[in-house]
């Protein structure tokens, strides 16, 4: 009983602290808030390399150099995107409509951090939370506890020096499923920012607390016949090999039109991609996919191509960058057609545009609804046609998918490490989540009479002989 009481008290204390921080935060103006955000960004940016190395060492996933870039995006790029945004007080006034918008914070936010981006996601979520004057509690992955907590500590220290409210940032050192569950359902929690696996996101949405979650990706990249082939393949390698494929928006399958396939394959080889034989594909499947759980094998996530090849007993050159598995179909009989967060990619040759789009639809709906799809093309009509048939929050064109989906580097999407997948992915938004999603917007609505309604003879509403078409005509008379 004592243990249970201590646990409850521990969780309650986090929220007592957070509520106090929220209260104090509510008094700060835009200038004070922005000073805090700037200080935190600068501290995070300053520690980008140390934190990247810590993350790579602690998790054993990815490459520290690529994690540096992730930390740069999470700090500098996010800061550049949000620094001038109005997030306090009156943020918009329209004297014609008489509507004034006021930004209010949401309250304490619980940030679930994935093992794949353990420092960048911390810094990103802290920046957008503080920009919107919300205190945040960081819940790290067990496998990345130290580096995530260190990132939070660095941010907090900087925030306090900039006169931020005490406990505006907290972190759970001794994380556990029980603690996370208790926090997600706490009465004083305003929002969960859930970045993680499907199970965790489902748990967050089921908690009863408002949640912004993410979904799984299974990103097809379509190389349409008008694409610049060497450029397209180069961009795919940049993306898929980045941090050993740990970004959920990285390409999972290449679909190339037959007319350009041989050129595509030539470029694969030039860039040290190995196109596997059917037998090699079978060998690889056993290693990269867990047939019982029907998921990628966690042990190969973020591992280099050569290490995976060795595990699978594949004889490939030692400088191999990417393992390319030609497949004939999509689904459970083709395990590599699923999401594999590693330098392993499925490869399809399509007869023509329509065939390619059909394959992409299959891939999109095979575990990646709402996330991201990618296309290389110089035909705008085909880009639009393809996009309208996909169920994806973001369709990145002529860019690496990992960096493209995250935003801010190769396109004008808001830089974010929380990519909404819409209702298909059981999320509430398809947006790249940022500071504006963490505000409650209030609207003052001043009297501005609806002129058409004022002039309309309201007695007509009680005339049963009048149908909608007649009413509409009279209602919209311009006189």
């Amino acid at each position: 009983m004592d243990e249970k009481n201590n646990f409850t008290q521990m969780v309650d204390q986090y929220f007592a602290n957070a509520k106090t921080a929220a209260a104090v935060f509510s008094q700060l103006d835009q200038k004070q808030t922005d000073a805090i955000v700037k200080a935190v960004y600068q501290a995070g940016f300053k520690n980008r390399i140390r934190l990247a190395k810590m993350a790579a060492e602690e998790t054993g996933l990815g490459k520290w150099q690529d994690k540096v870039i992730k930390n740069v995006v999470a700090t500098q790029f996010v800061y550049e995107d949000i620094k001038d945004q109005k997030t306090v007080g009156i943020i918009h006034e329209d004297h014609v409509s008489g509507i004034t918008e006021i930004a209010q914070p949401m309250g304490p936010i619980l940030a679930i951090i994935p093992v794949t981006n353990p420092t960048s996601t911390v810094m990103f979520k802290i920046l957008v939370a503080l920009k919107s004057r919300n205190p945040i509690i960081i819940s790290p992955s067990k496998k990345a506890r130290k580096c995530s907590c260190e990132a939070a500590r660095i941010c907090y220290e900087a925030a306090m020096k900039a006169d931020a409210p005490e406990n505006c940032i907290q972190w759970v050192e001794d994380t556990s499923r029980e603690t996370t569950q208790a926090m997600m359902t706490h009465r004083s929690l305003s929002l969960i920012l859930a970045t993680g696996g499907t199970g965790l996101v489902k748990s967050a949405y089921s908690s009863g607390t408002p949640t912004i979650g993410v979904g799984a990706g299974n990103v097809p990249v379509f190389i349409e016949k008008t694409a610049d082939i060497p450029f397209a393949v180069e961009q795919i390698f940049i993306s898929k090999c980045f941090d050993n494929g740990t970004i959920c928006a990285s390409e999972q399958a290449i679909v190339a039109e037959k007319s350009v396939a041989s050129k595509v394959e030539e470029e694969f080889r030039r860039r040290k991609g190995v196109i596997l034989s059917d037998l090699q594909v079978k060998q690889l499947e056993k290693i990269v996919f867990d047939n019982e759980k029907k998921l990628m094998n966690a042990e190969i996530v973020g591992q280099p191509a050569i290490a995976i090849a060795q595990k699978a007993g594949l004889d490939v050159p030692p400088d191999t960058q990417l393992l390319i598995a030609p497949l004939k179909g999509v689904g459970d009989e083709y395990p590599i057609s699923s999401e594999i967060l590693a330098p392993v990619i499925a490869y399809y040759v399509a007869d023509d545009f329509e065939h390619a789009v059909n394959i992409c639809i299959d891939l999109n709906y095979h575990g990646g609804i709402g996330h991201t799809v990618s296309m290389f093309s110089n035909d705008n009509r085909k880009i639009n046609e393809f996009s309208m048939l996909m169920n994806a929050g973001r369709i990145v064109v002529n860019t690496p998918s990992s960096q493209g989906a995250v935003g801010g580097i190769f396109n004008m999407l808001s830089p974010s490490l929380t990519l909404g997948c819409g209702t298909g992915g059981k999320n509430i938004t398809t947006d790249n989540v940022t500071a504006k999603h963490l505000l409650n917007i209030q609207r003052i609505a001043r009297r501005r009479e609806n002129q058409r309604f004022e002039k309309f003879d309201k007695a007509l509403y009680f005339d049963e002989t009048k149908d909608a078409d007649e009413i509409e005509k009279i209602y919209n008379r311009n006189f």
Partner: protein
Amino acid sequence: MIRTEKSDGKDIFFFDGRMDTATCAGVEKELDGQIEKAEGTVVFDLGSVDFVSSAFLRICIATAKKKGAGNLKVANAAPSIKKVFKIAGLDQFLM
């Protein structure tokens, strides 16, 4: 120097300006001892206060603990300060 007054069996403490962390360090020292001596309800008059920090809220909570629930009241808070107590879940102190 915190101005104090006795009225209707209440000990009223008048605070002024920004109750930030630095100011509260001094306030805490000054209140030390005075709160124990107070016999009835303790009232913190915040009529002239325009900002409260976590440190001040902690002083309120500590005072309430010392004097017993219901024996600390916060009076004359401006709406922005009243809102702070509401958000912090400390509206039981508000008069």
